[in-house]
């Protein structure tokens, strides 16, 4: 379970005070496929960064299971990211000087109990590209590597920041399908930040954010398969 309790992220003071996220509260169950929707500057990425321990909240509590990550120091946050969180970025953020296989194997340095890299890459359909460098792959393939890198750690949480933002729609669908399957089969909580409202149809939980506030949190009892989404 993930729970945000009155979480705020404030930049500046006095008149220059800007609330990137203000008094945000919501709760989602483990293994959910969560979509965070909102226009640019709404605070969705801030929410994701706080949840992933990449940024500190100004106030409130963020519970991942029974752990309040707002109380962790830097060392503990590093361990939290290493053990429990997988990240997927819009621009993949792969290490350009490591091959596909090495990018995934790299995770063994932060978590010993990683899944075998080749096996995971095979799962995401890249079994034939192990020795290639990221620059030799298409955008969709790079994002698959990024997903493989994230799931190799078997994280509780998979945080995806605009994972299809740099991809064409067909490729985007394939990537989202992969993420949805991961949520279903691995019981991993997948949180996707996007401004593509169409994806909401496939989500278990949709959180809408506007001007730093949680506008709504809705649960879809019977979400459709991602391939059925009308783009």
């Amino acid at each position, binding site marked *: 379970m993930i729970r945000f309790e009155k979480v705020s992220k404030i930049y500046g003071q006095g008149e220059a005070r800007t609330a990137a996220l203000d008094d945000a509260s919501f709760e989602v169950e483990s293994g959910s496929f969560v979509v965070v929707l909102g226009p640019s500057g709404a605070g969705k990425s801030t929410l994701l960064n706080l949840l992933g321990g990449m940024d500190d909240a100004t106030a409130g509590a963020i519970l991942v299971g029974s752990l309040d990550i707002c109380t962790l120091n830097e060392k503990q946050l590093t361990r939290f990211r*290493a053990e429990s969180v997988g990240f997927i970025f819009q*621009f993949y953020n792969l290490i350009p000087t490591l091959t596909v296989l*090495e990018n995934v194997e790299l995770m063994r340095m932060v978590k010993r109990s990683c899944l075998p890299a080749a096996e995971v890459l095979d799962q995401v359909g890249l079994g034939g590209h192990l020795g290639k460098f990221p620059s030799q792959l298409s955008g969709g393939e790079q994002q698959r590597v990024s997903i493989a890198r994230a799931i190799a750690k078997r994280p509780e949480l998979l945080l995806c920041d605009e994972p299809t933002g740099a991809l064409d729609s067909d490729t985007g669908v394939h990537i989202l399908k992969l993420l949805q399957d991961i949520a279903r089969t691995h019981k991993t909580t997948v949180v996707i930040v996007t401004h593509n409202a169409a994806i909401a149809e496939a989500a278990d939980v949709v959180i809408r954010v506007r001007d730093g506030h949680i506008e709504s949190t809705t649960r879809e009892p019977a979400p459709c398969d991602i391939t059925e989404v009308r783009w």
Partner: protein
Amino acid sequence: MILLRKMGRDLLGHKAQFLSLFLISLLAVGFYTGITAEYRGMELSGRDFFEETNLATLWVFGEDFTEDELEAVAALEDVEQVERLLLYETQARLPDAPALTVRYREGDEINRLLVWEGAAFVPDDERIWLDLRFAEARGLTVGDSLSFTVAGTSVDAQIAGLVYSPELVYPELGDSLSPDYGAHGHVFTGIGNLPQPDAAALAEAAATLSATTATQGDATQAAGTEGAALGSRGFQPPFNQLVVYAPAAIEHQYSLEEDVEGVLGSRAATILVQENHPTASTLWAECEQHAIFANAFPVLFMFIAVLVMLSTMSRLVSKQATLIGTMKALGVQRGAIAAHYVGYGFLIMLAGGLLGAALGPPFVPELFKPSITRFFTLPYWQTYREPFFFILPFVIALAGALVSWLSSRRILAQAPAEAMRPRAPREARHSPLEALPFWKRLSPSLQLTERDMRRNKLRSVMSVVSSMGVSALLLVAFLSWSIMDEMVSWQYSTINNFASRATLAEDGDAGELRRLTERYEALPLMEQAIEIRLPASPASKVTGTLQAFESTGPEGGEAAGNGSEAGEAENEALLRVTDPERRIRSLEDDQVLMSYGVARNLGLGVGERFEWHRYGEGGWHEATVDAINRNPLVWGLTMTPDTLEGFGIDFEPTALLSARMIAADEAGVQSVVSAEEISAGMDLMLEAMVMMASVMIAVAVLISIFTLYNLSTLTFSEMERELATLKVVGFKRRQIVMLLFAQNLILSVLGFIPGIPLGWKIADLMFNAQGGTLDMATLLIPSDVLLTLAVVWGLCAVVALLFIRKVARLDMVGSLKAPE
């Protein structure tokens, strides 16, 4: 103006890189101008002093120089003036009876005295003038009296003045190798003050004086032998030295020497040209050595600075490519943009260089003054400045500007749209290393490091080259220290095996010598100043020392002559001989050993012929180099007493060496020094060099830190996104810092490998060019190589530590969102 503001902000934004460039430029210019000001100041002071006092061009030693001979020499082409002197060695009646050289002079036109205190020198005055350093050491001043004996006549003269003499710029070092100004004084007075003793006393004095001790480079030694003439005339002063002043012949001193030889024939026992006189030769040798430091190292520093500038500017410009495109799109002239980027390098290097030029000359010479003034006596130490000191920063700034332009010209030449287009990341490629069996076993971080280095070739090459320069610099600095240490240990542990050395009194007799030798189980040693020349080119003459002592090697022993391991006898010897590889070898009868330095200087090898003679000896002995003897302090010939006598020269010991401490108050002993005192004297002698090495180490370490920090900052900046990714996926701060550390470590080793031979070559050049008569073997000492590597790696570690905070503050969100 706006671009200037931008430049100011960019400089602030990249303060670490630009500050290190500023400091490297400051250090390079400061070091160059400082050391140049120091040695050129010393050179200038020496030249002015020699010019002001008309330092002789030639010194001629002989007997009873007559008025006619003086006139014959004076008539030679280029000769402006000639003066006769009588040098007389005696002792002052002061505590410890210091040695005294009295110079009875006819005039004061050549080797003029510069009066520090008291009256100007007048040859007709009945008073005496005393060298200032002896007076200071002995607490004597103008108006005091000084007593000594000349050929049996007691002299009690009043001191009229304390003087600087151009012949005494460098002191006789004596047995302890350190200057003891109170142990040997120099008196100057008119020839009219020479006592006119009775014939018997003069004859006795002559006998004593003829047994003079000659030490290396001491031109006054021939003086004593001339005492014999004192007793045989009504009274004609027996002048034993001619000084010749021929400034026009300074460039061809040896040809003038030949002319003088032609006029005087065998009457000129020894002729010493100015460039071989210790007063000039040691001063110029010291300047030459400092010049090598001043010229070699700043070039290395600047080379490093230019490389760092190249990588810094390349990085800055490529980061600002979009901005450059935007400026061009907005209509800013290409020239204005180019000038803006060229300005970074120019201003930074100029600012650092100007500050270095302002700070170097006043401060650096002060570091060397204590050790230099301990050995060199000059009436003034001039401050040297030249316009080039302030031109140099501009030259360096122009180099910086050129490098900046080279870094930016490609982007500047692009069309605005092309410049603004985001750059595709550089492709990574597989390396041949990946075919190696161990590649797969390497950790991903090492694989990442290897590929990152290949992907960022410019930065990597800069790092390797910088590390090469830094390694060379550190190695030279460490070698300077340890070669000096090695030399001291070689001399005082391997070669010298005695506890004390007694200089024998000139009036000692054979009975006393025998008694002392037996009592202290001592080794008699004869040392005398000699000249060595090639038969084919007599002008190629070197001055040196003859060293004769009893062979201690086994008769026909295995060690003999072949440089193999020494026998037991050599190991127990009080004085040993070492071969060119510095192994102990035997000294056999019928062998003439030439010192390594002299052989190298004359281009002689084993089996080749040469000629030699003692100072004061008319003819030349022919000899063959039977073996090479390597000894840091012996510059000349070594042989046994039997071999010496084979040349028709009596073995007349001048010193005794003993494993025990010889009592200084023994009859027949003039002075005694312990091995420790000699070793301490050597340390003093090397002090200036140690100081130079220390300054160099300090500068090398600072430059290394700046360079490594700068390059690490570049690495960090270029890898920021990758590092942020690693941080996001859970890499610990330590792991990320280790990644940077590993990269620096690998690059520094790649630079270290060629840096070692480079440093060794520079050190060899430096030590071989040090002039003088010290033979310093430039060994590649493994511990120094390891120390250099340890320091380079240590600095990498220090720089990595400096990055811990940077990694902690790495903005994961900002770095990863940047492309969006």
